[in-house]
């Protein structure tokens, strides 16, 4: 229908913002998650408690509120962010906590014999973590990580609260303006296509890591 063609450009503009938030958050929160997981599984009590508190707060409060606090609340204590950086910061901190717990589960699931096997060879703690544990943990956690990634694509719609024009907001505005549910349907289909493509990519990654049992 010609209506679909009419509003497609706007929807794709919104998709651009959605994907920007998604990709930046992913690039930043996965490494953060690894750091948190290593802290949570370390021998140091301080590192364990600090990272534990961080995870509690970031998982214990709604992402929407975290976005609002960072953009609207922090200026009160003198820290200001532009809208887009504020969104990225909130998303990164939030998803970093979830990834942290997923990676922690992965690290803990590796048999302690792997650590001992590496220790008697004289490998350093850093080498044991990076060369032996993390590569094996990574393979284990691909399914739950895929879960988080697909949730992230849809969570990006929360940035409406900062006035950012991501895809769902565009859809809602068009629906209101044109008194039609069609825009929302189109937006739903676009989300589905994006996530279907992502799922395929993740499936390929999982297959690639299936080179050993």
């Amino acid at each position: 229908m010609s209506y679909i063609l009419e509003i497609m450009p706007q929807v794709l503009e919104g998709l651009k913002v959605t994907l920007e938030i998604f990709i930046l958050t992913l690039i930043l929160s996965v490494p953060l998650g690894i750091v948190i997981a290593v802290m949570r599984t370390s021998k140091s009590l301080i590192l364990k408690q600090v990272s534990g508190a961080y995870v509690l707060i970031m998982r214990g409060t709604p992402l929407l509120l975290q976005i609002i606090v960072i953009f609207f609340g922090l200026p009160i204590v003198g820290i200001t962010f532009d809208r887009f950086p504020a969104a990225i910061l909130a998303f990164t901190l939030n998803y970093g906590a979830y990834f942290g717990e997923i990676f922690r589960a992965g690290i803990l699931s590796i048999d302690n014999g792997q650590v001992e096997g590496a220790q008697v060879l004289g490998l350093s703690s850093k080498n044991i973590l990076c060369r032996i544990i993390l590569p094996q943990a990574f393979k284990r956690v691909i399914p739950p990580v895929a879960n988080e990634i697909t949730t992230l694509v849809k969570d990006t719609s929360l940035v409406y609260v900062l006035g950012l024009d991501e895809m769902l907001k565009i859809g809602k505005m068009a629906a209101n303006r044109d008194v039609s549910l069609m825009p929302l349907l189109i937006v739903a289909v676009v989300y589905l296509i994006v996530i279907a493509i992502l799922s395929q990519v993740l499936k390929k990654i999982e297959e690639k890591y299936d080179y050993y049992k």
Partner: protein
Amino acid sequence: MLKVNNVKKKFGDAEVLKGVNLEIAQGEILVVVGHSGGGKTTLLRCVNALEHCDEGDIEINGKILCKDGKYVDKKSLKEIRKDIGLVFQNFNLFPHMTVLENLIEAPQKVLGWTKEEAIKNAEETLGFLNLLEKKENYPFELSGGQKQRVAIGRALVLEPKIMCFDEPTSALDPGLTGEVANLIKSLSVKGMSMMIITHDMDFAKKVADRIVSMNLGKLQEGLIFDELES
């Protein structure tokens, strides 16, 4: 090569090692036999610094590993670990690495060899162990006997002065016992000492220069058991 003096170890209230004394000379194959729970594996783990004993001294190749129950620092431990190798009962091979990669990891990271040097040495060792054709395989593709040889090879490439084996025949077919005994004997020809933990008395008699028995946390010379559970 190995000196263990009055080593004691408790787990909670249970005293597992009650003052163990042991010496292994260069090139000697010592076998420690005993029932499960007698303390043999704990002793082996203390000697390899996987457990820390509460009291006693351990010396490897003239270097102090543990004095009065205090173990040396990380740096010294790293040096000592070059002299002692351990083959685990369940091998603990790195499943995400090929056989060759399992063997070249430590020489590069611990001994500082280049990748080429490490590969050359690893391939020599694999040849000696009859595993060269499996060098690009992953551990999950190997039989139990092959996995054990990879585990031995991985410890061997670091050229330790003493090799430890924790129950080397328990994960294998009974028919392979003789092969393992021969392999271990051929290693000691090069002057390597061995410390073997087992409850397989036939294997012990085949492979040992000297047998000691571990019973309820105490070590005695010779074979004191008539038979042990298999």
